[in-house]
């Protein structure tokens, strides 16, 4: 076989495979949207699930997913920013810092099921939070933290050195330089990364099985008192999220329309994650243009 023929064959294979990958994604999304979109309705999105009868919805689960995301992010963002600032601006170049980097790398590789088990042991049992939004939020924080640290570090390192030096040369403190000069410049990178991280958190389930739990109590959406056991805002109640619900229906779904509900819930999940992805990319491009098109 001549080299030219080999080249042609190889190229066709590569192009075909690439096309195959696009088809796989299209098939995946197509399947979920075709099977699931039809099942979506306002009723479906707001009513509670049925255990054995047809016609259940995903209302509480959807709320739980959103609320849990919110709780997780308000904990992870300050923690991740702080740790990222430390790694980028304060950490000396020595063995201890290398050790910390190894720790962050290990933490980011730990499977989420183990994070969930850890949460079960420490948060649910040891600290006694029980299956709750709070335990779930802390477990997701552990899951999300290494990514936030990396995003923050990346953002800060992308700040040109002269910006930092200009601020310090005016007699500003290091901390003020970080907050008033460096963080604003790295905001596009950090913001984009955070939105993508939020997408990951929204779809996560394994870490929540044994922390936020696999059930959701009857919620009274008119009760906004966070201390009441039936209020949706109570962070110490069990809170099955959308992703966990999909898993549960698929393994122990007794309702006759279990498959449809799973498809509909998957559609909602996928659409939300897609929305996160698109807005992150769009935001990144918009902010980048805003910053550089000024020239």
């Amino acid at each position: 076989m001549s080299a030219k023929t080999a080249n042609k064959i190889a190229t066709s294979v590569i192009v075909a495979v690439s096309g195959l990958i696009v088809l796989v994604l299209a098939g995946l999304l197509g399947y979920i949207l075709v099977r699931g979109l039809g099942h979506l309705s306002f009723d479906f999105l707001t009513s509670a699930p049925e255990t054995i009868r047809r016609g259940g919805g995903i209302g509480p689960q959807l709320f739980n997913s959103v609320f849990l995301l919110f709780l997780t992010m308000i904990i992870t963002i300050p923690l991740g920013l702080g740790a990222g600032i430390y790694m980028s601006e304060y950490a000396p170049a020595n063995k201890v810092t290398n050790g910390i980097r190894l720790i962050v790398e290990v933490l980011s590789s730990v499977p989420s099921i183990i994070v969930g088990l850890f949460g079960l042991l420490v948060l649910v049992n040891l600290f006694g939070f029980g299956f709750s939004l709070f335990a779930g939020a802390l477990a997701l924080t552990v899951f999300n933290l290494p990514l936030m640290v990396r995003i923050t570090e990346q953002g800060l390192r992308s700040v040109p050195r002269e910006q930092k030096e200009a601020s310090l040369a005016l007699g500003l403190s290091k901390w003020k330089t970080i907050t008033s000069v460096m963080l604003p410049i790295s905001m596009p990178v950090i913001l984009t990364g955070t939105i993508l991280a939020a997408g990951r958190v929204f779809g996560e389930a394994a870490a929540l099985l044994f922390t936020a739990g696999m059930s959701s109590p009857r919620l009274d959406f008119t009760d906004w008192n966070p201390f009441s056991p039936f209020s949706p805002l109570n962070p110490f109640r069990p809170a099955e999220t959308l992703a966990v619900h999909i898993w549960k229906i698929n393994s122990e779904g007794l309702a006759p329309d279990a498959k449809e509900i799973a498809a509909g819930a998957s559609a909602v999940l996928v659409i939300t994650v897609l929305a996160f992805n698109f807005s992150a990319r769009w935001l990144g491009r918009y902010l980048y243009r805003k910053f550089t098109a000024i020239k």
Partner: protein
Amino acid sequence: MAQPLERQQAKPHLAEEWVGKVYTLLCIAFLILTIFSLVYFVASKGLSTFFVNGVNVIDLLTGLKWAPEGEPRLFGALPFIFGSFSTSLLAAAIAAPLGFCASVFMVEIAPKFGRQYLQPVIELLAGIPSVVYGFVGLSVIVPFFRDVFPGQGVGIAAGSVVLSIMILPTITTIATDALAALPKGLKEGSYALGATRWQTIYRIVLPTTLPALMTGIVLGIARAFGEALAVQMVIGNAPHIPRSLFESASTLTSAITLSMGNTAMGTVANNALWSLALILMLMTFVFVFIVRWLERRSKI
């Protein structure tokens, strides 16, 4: 207005610097505390099976039957270990060539088109939650295998296929970065000698980027190894070593997912599951170690 250089005017910013240092240090301390307590707690629970309940380590690692609540109690975890390894390795075997093709397409063959269309596709595949993969696997792949191949449709084959698509983005992204980082001069030298693109790729590009590609593959294997829900939904969950790719099997993660909720904390059955989690965690360390070793080698 000339001002002295003394400390007295320095007070406002000293407090500020102190705030910054303490805040960031506390955040890092939280991170460090988390990983150490995670390892400690999982390890202590997992080891209690051996030290408190008296189960033999070798029996756990090599035994073929898993029946912690049966008569007699058996703690053979080999089926799970086998299942985890075979699904991960098979998934990587499928995803690696696919990912390599995708990255070559994006870097060498059609860079603009590739970046514009294939790249977002890869990113979207990465963003789809694992339960959705499991659901589609259960609804599409398992019935398909059941119709086409002998067996129930569940098993290692279904698990591997689902996992391969899940780890494809990981491998592709790392391969793309590695290919893009290659100095242009390397390829141009080959073309100048009259080599075709494919010759350049497999004679020059592939060997040079091999360490980075290996890193991507190992990271993909690690990701597949730790995946719980998607695998559990399509693997069948029978605690045996299967005799074919289409027979029900189990992995470490699927066993934990399935049984953790059904056993009571403190019982030997529950502790045995924690031992499985311990094995999983130790494998994570092994993977991180391998990746670091590969990265060090590629720096030469």
